[in-house]
């Protein structure tokens, strides 16, 4: 069997190939910077060479002398538009051309626009600034860093979760640890470069830009430009990787729009790989202190997680992963505290499982340490502390298949054959280690609209303003329509990535499949109801049957007794050529304003730990084998097994691919990825794909994904738990656990590099 197309088990959909696969292998999938545009001008950014201070003068003469230069947009040129806002659709509140203050290295100081890309680049590089420079604060330990408790300071983080008497329980615990962990700065580095192409048609603006949030951007860009949202359209049919980086809109979008308006020509600006490090968002570095106390029997009685996260001066971006780590196990008592640390850096933002990647890494590394302190098998330690209800709100889990994941992954991995003693396993010159960790991700869902049309000849068109960032959401939306309407997948077309389509929420927080499929399901059910009513009504081909007894299979409506009617015959009875349904899906618990907020680009998220009835999470268990060369200390991960349960799996092929990609991201987080910062200048120094290490093909060998069947009707009508951000949670802790098993060295600061294992 082809591992790429796992055989569906209970509650899993077919491994259909992606609906856009042919476009992607023939070069016909048009990403936003691909669209041919007549009379286009090219823009290139000039960025600051200091991290803190003021621009006192800008020298533009050399740039203006470049043949082909058309315009330079800089200070003063944005005065009549609104500054960006931080939050929801906005990456930062810094309006780089509104204010000569420099908040971070690599801040935009001008946009050069020219007839050719080459001339624009040349001009941008000739723009020089004079600065009044201050000493910048680079990171945690730099002078000038200001630590702020996160709770209550940011709408993104309401409270530090707690339960019971941690101090008392920890003091009384027979076995305890108190350790510190850290994770580095990371940049998303999707392979598609960030870009904006702006075209004005009269007072209508069309922006082609890779976006995970076309509706939110439309509203925010209209606000900045002081135009009606109806005048702005964001188009992003294919997105070349996102991972959170294309969720919030950056200030560049409005700058390019203004350039295009001034020039009366379309303008395209493709940001260089290096400039993206300072002009886009990133995952900020974090620090953690974890204390765990347990009885000698292995039951945890006290858990404390303190976190510190870097942010920018003006924007309190916080991820606050204690909300998940505080609910992971049956702790007894919980104490958490999250702080943000303000520095002279660009504002961080969402990056694949923003809270869980750093916080669950710290928790799971600590859990492994605790298992060693107890002399207990790490899988058994987790089994003992498996909760019946979550410890903070004392709510049940809507479903939780973590132990099934551990059992299946352990078996496939061969965990029982491990020699548990440190350094006991060897293969020639290679020290072998094995480790494991838990993956968790909150199951969110948001309001979503969709339009589905079925024509009498059995063609289906699905329209939804969601975003195909590589997840396969376009495929699974089509699959949902195909299953529900009984129409062959080849007769389905799906349009996404355009703010003129029915609005969908931001494609973040792993909500897209759940939200979009729930909306498509609702639209298809409305079409079914119309068809069934006509079929069973007077003069209908299935008159006398009841609607609830009908099914549609292969383009035919089938009644219980065996009678059937072709869909086209029902259309004849209805005397219509097409049935089209525009629906708005709102999840259980949605406020009365929920749908209005969807159109305003500020969708409500539900699920996770927010619902009254239960907490909703997807879980997984990951096992890795590491091999460390006894002489060079080179670290390899030749084998990794992950088992995951995430409710209804719409398509086993796309689900496996997402989880696989996540697991490889996890290996990257463990061993490769880190943005290095020169603390003297608060400057990123490895701003390219040669020096910012990501996993390549040769880093990955034997990888197995196990899809564990799970049914959960409480999460959303589609029964789907998002899994795009599940696979990379926990992986780095599993690697750290395996490194310890191989070497006896406990590495608490990521990434784990050769130098950490010398001596």
């Amino acid at each position, binding site marked *: 069997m*082809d*591992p*790429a*197309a796992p055989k569906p088990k209970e509650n899993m959909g077919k491994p259909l*190939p*992606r609906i*856009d696969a*042919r476009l*992607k*292998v*023939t*070069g*016909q*999938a048009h*990403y936003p*910077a*691909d669209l*041919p545009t007549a009379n286009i001008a090219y823009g290139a950014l000039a960025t600051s060479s200091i991290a803190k201070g003021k621009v006192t003068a800008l020298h533009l003469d050399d740039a203006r002398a470049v*043949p082909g230069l058309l315009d330079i947009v800089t200070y003063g040129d944005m005065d009549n538009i609104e500054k960006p806002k931080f939050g929801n659709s906005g990456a930062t509140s810094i309006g780089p051309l509104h204010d000569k203050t420099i908040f971070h290295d690599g801040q935009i100081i001008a946009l050069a626009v020219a007839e*050719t*890309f*080459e*001339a624009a680049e040349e001009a941008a590089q000739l723009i020089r600034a004079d600065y009044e420079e201050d000493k910048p604060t680079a990171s945690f330990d730099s002078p000038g860093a200001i630590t702020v408790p996160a709770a209550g300071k940011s709408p993104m983080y309401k409270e530090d979760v707690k339960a019971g008497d941690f101090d008392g329980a920890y003091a009384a615990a027979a076995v305890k640890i108190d350790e510190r962990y850290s994770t580095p700065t990371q940049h998303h*580095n*999707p*392979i*598609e*470069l960030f870009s904006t192409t702006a075209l004005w048609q009269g007072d209508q603006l069309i922006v082609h830009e890779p976006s995970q949030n076309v509706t939110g951007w439309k509203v925010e860009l209209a606000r900045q430009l002081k135009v009606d949202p109806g005048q702005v359209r964001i188009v992003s049919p*294919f*997105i*070349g*990787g*996102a991972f959170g980086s294309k969720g919030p809109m950056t200030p560049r979008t409005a700058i390019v729009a203004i350039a295009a308006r001034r020039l009366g020509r379309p303008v395209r600006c493709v940001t*260089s*790989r290096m400039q993206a490090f300072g002009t886009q968002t990133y995952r900020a570095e974090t620090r953690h202190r974890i204390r765990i106390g347990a009885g000698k029997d292995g039951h945890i009685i006290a858990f404390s997680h303190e976190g510190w996260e870097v942010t920018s001066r003006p924007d309190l971006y916080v991820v606050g992963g204690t909300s998940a780590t505080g609910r992971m196990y049956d702790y007894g008592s919980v104490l958490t505290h999250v702080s943000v640390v303000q520095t002279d850096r660009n504002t961080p933002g969402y990056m694949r499982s923003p809270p869980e990647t750093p916080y669950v890494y710290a928790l799971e590394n600590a859990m492994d340490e605790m298992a060693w302190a107890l002399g207990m098998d790490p899988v058994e330690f987790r089994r003992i502390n498996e909760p019946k209800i979550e410890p903070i709100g004392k709510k049940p889990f809507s479903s939780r298949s973590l132990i099934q994941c551990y059992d299946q992954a352990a078996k496939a991995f061969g965990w029982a054959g491990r020699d548990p003693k440190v350094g006991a396993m060897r293969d020639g010159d290679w020290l072998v280690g094995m480790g494991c960790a838990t993956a968790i991700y909150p199951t969110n869902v948001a309001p979503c609209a969709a339009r589905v049309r079925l024509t009498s000849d059995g063609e289906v068109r699905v329209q939804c303003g969601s975003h*195909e*960032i*590589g*997840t396969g959401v376009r495929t699974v939306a089509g699959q949902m329509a195909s299953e529900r309407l009984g129409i062959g997948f080849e007769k389905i077309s799906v349009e996404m990535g355009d703010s003129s389509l029915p609005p969908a929420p931001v494609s973040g927080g792993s909500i897209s499949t759940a939200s979009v499929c729930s909306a498509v399901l609702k639209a298809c059910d409305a079409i079914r109801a119309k068809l069934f009513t006509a079929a069973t009504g007077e003069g209908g081909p299935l008159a006398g049957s009841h609607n609830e007894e009908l099914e549609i299979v292969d383009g035919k409506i089938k009644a219980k007794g065996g009678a059937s009617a072709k869909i086209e015959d029902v259309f004849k009875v209805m005397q219509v050529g097409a049935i089209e349904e525009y629906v708005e899906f709102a999840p259980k618990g949605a406020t009365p304003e929920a749908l209005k907020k969807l159109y305003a680009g500020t969708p409500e998220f539900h699920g996770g730990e927010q619902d009254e009835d239960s907490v909703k999470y997807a879980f997984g268990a990951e096992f890795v084998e590491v091999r460390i060369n006894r002489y060079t200390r080179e670290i390899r991960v030749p084998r990794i097994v992950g088992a995951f349960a995430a409710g209804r799996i719409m398509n086993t*092929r*796309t689900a*496996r*691919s997402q989880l*696989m*990609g996540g697991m*490889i*991201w996890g290996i*990257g987080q463990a061993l490769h990825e880190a943005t290095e910062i020169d603390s003297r200048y608060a400057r990123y120094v490895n701003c*390219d*794909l*040669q020096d910012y290490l*990501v*996993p*390549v*093909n*040769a*880093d*990955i*060998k034997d*990888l197995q994904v196990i899809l564990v069947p799970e049914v959960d009707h409480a999460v959303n009508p589609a029964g789907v738990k998002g899994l795009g951000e599940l696979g990379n949670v926990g992986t780095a802790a599993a690697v750290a656990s395996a490194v310890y098993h191989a070497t006896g060295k406990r590495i608490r600061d990521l990434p784990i590099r050769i130098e950490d294992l010398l001596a």
Partner: protein
Amino acid sequence: MSVEPKPRQPVVTSLKINKRSYDISLDTRTSLLDALRDHIGLTGTKKGCDHGQCGACTVLVDGKRVLSCLSFAVMNEGKDITTIEGLASRDGKLHPMQRAFIDHDAFQCGYCTPGQILSAIGCVNEGHAESEDDIREYMSGNICRCAAYPNIVAAVLQARDETKGA
């Protein structure tokens, strides 16, 4: 040629791409990648770094894989250039490597895919697809941030025997 080309001054360049000839006027600093994308309209070839570090811009030049962002367009006069748009036959039949990438779900977002496919064809032609380990090593110049690597290896294996000498 005896005349020194002047930077910025456009020169007419003849490029043979996917068996078709194009005469275009280019700034001599124009990379083959930008010539393909911005001047000829073949945007299947992607820009991922413009530094020769990611492999997204890989095309075949005289059958060998080349990073089109690191090659000036004018250096490719008279050479046979193949891009992703030139792989399928006129009747729409996919090249075996394209078919294999679909069969094994060897992509997610699809952005690095044209470069991966051309690199894979080059890898097979070079004789560097004899084992899975070989494929992993010789396909490591093409970064896939979605990390479809195991599926890419499976796709190259499937298409290997059909694509030798393609």
